[in-house]
């Protein structure tokens, strides 16, 4: 927890890997937002899981990340929990074991744990950066492009890299967030600028509040590559992202990133409503590119790896 963290005031030289050369996938999202019924449990069941590669029983399967053509592991390592671990050494051990086991998708956010999550992940990925698909999130929460670009530079420095594979707008959860993000001089302009500068390959947004806010973001027809949202077996009866957002992403060819597969704080698991394996298998069986999971111990990591290895929907 935070008591072990010392804010970084160091002036050490941070090694950086050479910037990858990459091509931006052209992506034009079109179409209108379609209102969805509140409860259609049969509709969700009709959605087919995404095809996977790397499916032998000892490997972590991979799926294609929407129209980007990138392949990512079906389980992703969440950055928030990494920053809650007892020590940097523990975090490094967790990340490196995950990478060596075949986890390629790494999640983070500029604001997690007062920046400790990015700092620790950056340290842990030294020497392994090219093996992973690295994402972090920009946390303007309505502030302008300049704030976003400043945060990008800070994230790159802490993550010890010169580019992100994916940069997402974090927590689009307030009703007026889409208006703020798409306003002139807002964070959307920062996404464009960062891509032009070659510091970001792909872009997306996240949120956990209401499918209507996600659909409002999508209604702008901006060429998002990814959209992250809660997807779990409890979602279907209340503000269902699975029913209202997932079909729209499939229609547009935008990669869906799942999170909160255990219901966020894990209360349903603790109360015995479902087991962790069936909850995670459910989330991974949806048409998502990856399911991001918070892992704060080697035991949790190894449990998730065992579920993901050779996973077949």
């Amino acid at each position, binding site marked *: 927890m935070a008591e072990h963290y010392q804010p970084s005031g160091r002036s050490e030289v941070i090694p950086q890997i050479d910037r990858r050369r990459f091509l931006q996938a052209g992506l034009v999202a079109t179409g209108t937002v379609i209102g969805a019924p509140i409860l259609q449990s049969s509709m969700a*069941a009709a959605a087919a899981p995404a095809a996977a590669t790397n499916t032998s029983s000892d490997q972590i399967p991979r799926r294609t990340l929407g129209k980007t053509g990138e392949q990512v592991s079906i389980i992703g390592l969440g950055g928030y929990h990494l920053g809650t671990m007892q020590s940097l050494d523990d975090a490094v051990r967790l990340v490196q074991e995950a990478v060596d086991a075949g986890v390629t998708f790494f999640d983070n956010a500029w604001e997690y744990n007062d920046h400790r999550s990015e700092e620790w992940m950056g340290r842990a990925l030294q020497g392994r950066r090219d093996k992973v698909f690295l994402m972090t999130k920009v*946390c303007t929460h*309505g502030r302008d492009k300049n704030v976003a670009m400043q945060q990008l530079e800070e994230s790159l420095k802490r993550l010890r890299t010169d580019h992100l594979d994916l940069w997402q707008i*974090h927590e689009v*959860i307030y009703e007026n967030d889409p208006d703020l993000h798409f306003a002139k001089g807002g964070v959307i302009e920062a996404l464009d600028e960062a891509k032009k500068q070659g510091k970001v390959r792909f872009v997306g947004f996240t949120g956990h509040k209401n499918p209507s806010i996600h659909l409002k973001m999508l209604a702008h027809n901006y060429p998002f590559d990814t959209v992250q949202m809660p997807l779990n077996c*409890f979602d279907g009866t*209340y503000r269902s992202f699975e029913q209202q957002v997932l079909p729209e992403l499939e229609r547009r060819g935008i990669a869906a990133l799942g999170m909160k597969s255990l219901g*966020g704080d894990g209360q349903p698991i603790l109360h015995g409503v479902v087991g962790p394996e*069936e909850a995670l298998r459910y989330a991974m069986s949806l048409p998502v590119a990856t399911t991001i999971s918070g892992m704060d111990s080697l035991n949790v990591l190894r449990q998730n790896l065992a579920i993901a290895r050779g996973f077949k929907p």
Partner: protein
Amino acid sequence: MTPQEMQQLRDRCKSFAADGHLELYKSTKRYDGGVGREQHGYPPPEQLPL
């Protein structure tokens, strides 16, 4: 999971999850990040009186 297995699991969870109380991040601001709360005029949870 097969589509049938997924439907069975959804059906099993429905009575527990129906009003959203297993997903409070959808209906309260308790789980929202501090930076966003501040930008939208909400105090940190630890500063709330109750």
